[in-house]
């Protein structure tokens, strides 16, 4: 106190300064004491605070600091030693705690800071999620709108409803002011305003399709913002005060059936588009959002699909209507044709009768007249009359025949006849005329030509007669050679007749008739015309020739009806000609004496066939089926022996048994083995009884096994009386393998 080495002179304690220090110390102490209290209070209030220990430490630090400052108050004036000790203790403690706290804070503060950063991070994340939520919600809403729109659009197949609905729904969903659809015209050069939302009947505005703004919209599948002043957007009259809302346009593809090729998807460049223009309300300062644009694009696509459906439906309905019309027309035409044919047939029938009657009268009376006494001139006249009327009669017959041939109503009269006698008759008929012309007629029938054949005798004779008659007619001298033989397969496949493909079977044979004359011949260019109706060979058409020119045409028809072919060969004028025809005839089964009428092979089923005394053997081990089958056979008159096993069957069977019935379901020695044994025992066919299997099994394998084992027939159970009768009939007649269902 007395002297110290201070730089400044010692300064006695100033009262004012001391007072201020005193007060400050007091307030500091107060503050220092109150801070921990506040801390404790608030921490107690809050639920989460992780650093309680730190708090305690901090509190202690503060309290002690406060205490220090408080105790300082007493040190301003002279103080006792106790106070100094207390002060020192307090200071020391304070020092310790402060250092400890300082050390602790080094750990704590970074943590606290990181908490802050985490908090910031979480806040950012929450904001981002919020944004995403907002996006998803809008998307979902858009999706809902689209679905609803689609549902509305697709619930109708009428084009106008679809488009109208689209516009209405879009307008509602997006709260649009105006919505319009421009469709391409038929020419494809302009777009026409077809539908709008607000206007009920849009006036026919058109804009050319080649505008740049339209091209821009058509070139992309996205919705494009366009200027409100472009021609497609100027639908409503603009009044001054409106600031028009933003406009968006999108293309709507119009799909056609023809666009879809199987191999590649429709070419975008060849499509037609319609234009949909959407306008936001004016003065609303609304902007087009991305999700709204997407909605518009999706809707446009859906509309395209719905429209194509409607179009397809329209087309198919139109096609159906057309078909109905055509059907009706065809029906009418058919009925008219039928009426015409009926009328013609009636006419022919009538004319047939009406024309023939007078002809008959004329011919008959003229020939009668010929028989009476006549002067030579009269005779000549009568002969001319007769000849002319004969000609006329032939003409009438020919014409009537031909017309019947033409419309296919002519049917051949099939019957068995004597082939050889047909030729002989033809020769007999033609001999008189030939001998007058001093022509030699010779007939050459092949050795293997059957005597009897099945076919239309009358028309065959007519054909041969016609051909031979022509030969005679156009020959002035020489000979006529008629030869007939069976056509062999090689000769059938002639180069003459490329279209003629005969089917060879054992029931038919092809008769080949050739008539060769040494007459005037035919020039090659006339040969094709020979068979045409009413055409005559001009070279020979002179006074002497008679005939209608129909003869060969009719022959050709007859020959085709008989599934054959006819043609003429000639080397030229003056070199004679050869007429050849081939026809198909049936092989006659039995030969009879001429004049004997042949009973047709087809017997009516109801003819009672009696098998009285027919010896049959029945093998079946089931008592009931055996009894039933035996009953059947006895009823039909057979003499039935029954056996119940394969061994017994082989013991009992003899040559006298005509038929052996084997039930396939017997146990023990099988029916097949029995069949094989029977075959071994009676190797010759006529000694062996016919083997028939009875089975209820419908499998193919069963039938094959039966036939392989040598069965002559298979009958499917249950057997009816009729079935058994038919089977026996066929077996005994044909003695051939048969199968009856």
């Amino acid at each position: 106190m007395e002297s110290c080495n201070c730089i400044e002179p010692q300064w006695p304690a100033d009262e004012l300064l001391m007072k201020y220090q005193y007060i400050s110390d007091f307030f500091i102490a107060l503050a220092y004491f109150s801070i921990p209290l506040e801390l404790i209070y608030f921490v107690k209030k809050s639920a989460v605070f992780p650093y309680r220990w730190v708090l305690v430490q901090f509190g202690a630090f503060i309290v002690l600091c406060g205490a220090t400052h408080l105790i300082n108050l007493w040190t301003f004036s002279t103080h006792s030693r106790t106070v100094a000790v207390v002060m020192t203790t307090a200071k020391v403690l304070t020092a310790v705690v402060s250092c400890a706290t300082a050390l602790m804070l080094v750990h704590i503060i970074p943590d606290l800071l990181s908490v802050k950063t985490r908090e910031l991070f979480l806040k950012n994340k929450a904001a981002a999620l919020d944004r995403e939520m907002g996006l998803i919600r809008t998307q979902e809403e858009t999706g809902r709108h689209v679905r609803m729109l689609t549902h509305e659009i697709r619930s109708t197949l009428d084009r106008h409803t679809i488009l109208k609905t689209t516009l209405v729904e879009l307008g509602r969903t997006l709260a649009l002011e105006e919505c319009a659809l421009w469709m391409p015209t038929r020419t494809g050069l302009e777009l026409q305003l077809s539908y709008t939302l607000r206007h009920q009947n849009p006036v026919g505005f058109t804009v050319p399709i080649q505008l740049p703004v339209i091209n821009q919209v058509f070139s992309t599948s996205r919705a494009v913002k366009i200027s409100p002043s472009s021609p497609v957007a100027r639908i409503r009259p603009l009044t001054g005060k409106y600031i028009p809302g933003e406009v968006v346009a999108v293309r709507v593809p119009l799909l056609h059936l023809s666009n879809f090729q199987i191999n590649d998807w429709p070419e975008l460049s060849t499509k037609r588009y319609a234009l949909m223009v959407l306008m936001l309300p004016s003065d609303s300062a609304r902007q087009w959002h991305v999700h709204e644009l997407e909605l518009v694009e999706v809707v446009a696509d859906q509309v395209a699909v719905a429209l194509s459906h409607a179009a397809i439906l329209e087309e198919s309905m139109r096609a159906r209507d057309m078909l109905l019309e055509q059907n009706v027309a065809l029906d009418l035409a058919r009925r008219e044709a039928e009426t015409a044919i009926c009328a013609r047939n009636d006419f022919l029938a009538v004319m047939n009768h009406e024309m023939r009657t007078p002809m008959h009268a004329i011919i008959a009376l003229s020939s009668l007249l010929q028989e009476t006494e006549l002067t030579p001139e009269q005779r000549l006249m009568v002969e001319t009359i007769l000849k002319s009327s004969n000609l006329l009669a032939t003409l009438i017959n020919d014409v009537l025949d031909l017309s019947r041939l033409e419309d296919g109503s002519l049917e051949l009269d099939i019957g068995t006849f004597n082939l050889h006698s047909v030729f002989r008759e033809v020769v007999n008929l033609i001999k008189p005329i030939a001998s007058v012309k001093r022509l030699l007629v010779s007939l050459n029938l092949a050795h293997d030509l059957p005597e009897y054949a099945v076919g239309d005798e009358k028309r065959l004779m007519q054909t041969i007669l016609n051909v031979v008659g022509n030969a005679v007619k156009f020959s002035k001298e020489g000979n006529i050679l008629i030869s007939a033989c069976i056509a062999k397969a090689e000769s059938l496949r002639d180069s003459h007749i490329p279209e003629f493909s005969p089917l060879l079977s054992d029931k038919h044979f092809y008769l080949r008739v050739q008539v060769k004359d040494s007459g005037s011949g035919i020039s090659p260019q006339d040969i094709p015309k020979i068979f045409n109706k009413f055409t005559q060979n001009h070279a020979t058409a002179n006074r002497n020739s008679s005939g209608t020119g129909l003869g060969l045409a009719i022959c050709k028809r007859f020959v085709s009806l008989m599934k054959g072919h006819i043609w003429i060969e000639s080397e030229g004028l003056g070199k004679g000609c050869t007429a050849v025809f081939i026809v198909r005839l049936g092989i006659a089964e039995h030969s009879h004496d001429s004049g004997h009428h042949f009973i047709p092979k087809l017997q009516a089923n109801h003819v009672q066939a009696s098998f009285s005394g027919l010896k049959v053997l029945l093998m079946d081990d089931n008592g009931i089926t055996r009894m039933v089958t035996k009953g059947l056979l006895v009823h039909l008159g057979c003499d039935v022996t029954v056996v119940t096993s394969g061994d017994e069957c082989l013991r009992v069977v003899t040559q006298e048994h005509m038929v052996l019935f084997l039930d396939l379901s017997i146990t023990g020695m099988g029916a097949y083995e029995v069949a094989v044994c029977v075959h071994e025992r009676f190797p010759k066919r006529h000694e062996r009884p016919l083997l028939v299997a009875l089975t209820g099994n419908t499998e193919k394998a069963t039938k094959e096994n039966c036939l392989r084992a040598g069965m002559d027939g298979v009958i499917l159970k249950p057997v009816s009386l009729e079935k058994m009768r038919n089977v026996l009939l066929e077996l005994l007649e044909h003695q051939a393998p048969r199968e009856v269902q």
Partner: protein
Amino acid sequence: MDVGQLQRRLVDYTASLFREGFLDDQFTQLQQLQDESNPDFVFEVVSLFFEDSERLLNDLAISLDQPSVDFKKVDAHVHQLKGSSSSIGAQRVKNVCIAFRNFCEEQNIEGCLRCLQQVKHEYALVKNKLETLFRLEQQVLAAGGSIPME
């Protein structure tokens, strides 16, 4: 009751048997085989069928009762029964036999036993019906009438 009524009853009864599926066309075939030389053909066949079926059903019951069932034997029996029943036209019996054979192929004991029960039942039914039919026929004949043929 007079002959006409008896005949009518017979015809109705026969028609009902066909309608309900007890008999099928094969039975008609049998009836056609009956004539003066063979007046009791149908009766004989049906009686034979009854004897045979009862024997077969017995054998079937015994075979299925064995601890180890011989399905081949069972199948053979059923095959016989099927053949007999289809020969006389007992349609329902035949149909059950077809199902029975399927179960035999699958070696399904439960199914076989079930089918056996069914077959017995159907057989009893058709036997009853046929016996009634014969009784009615006897009545008609006794009253002096003749069996009406379709």
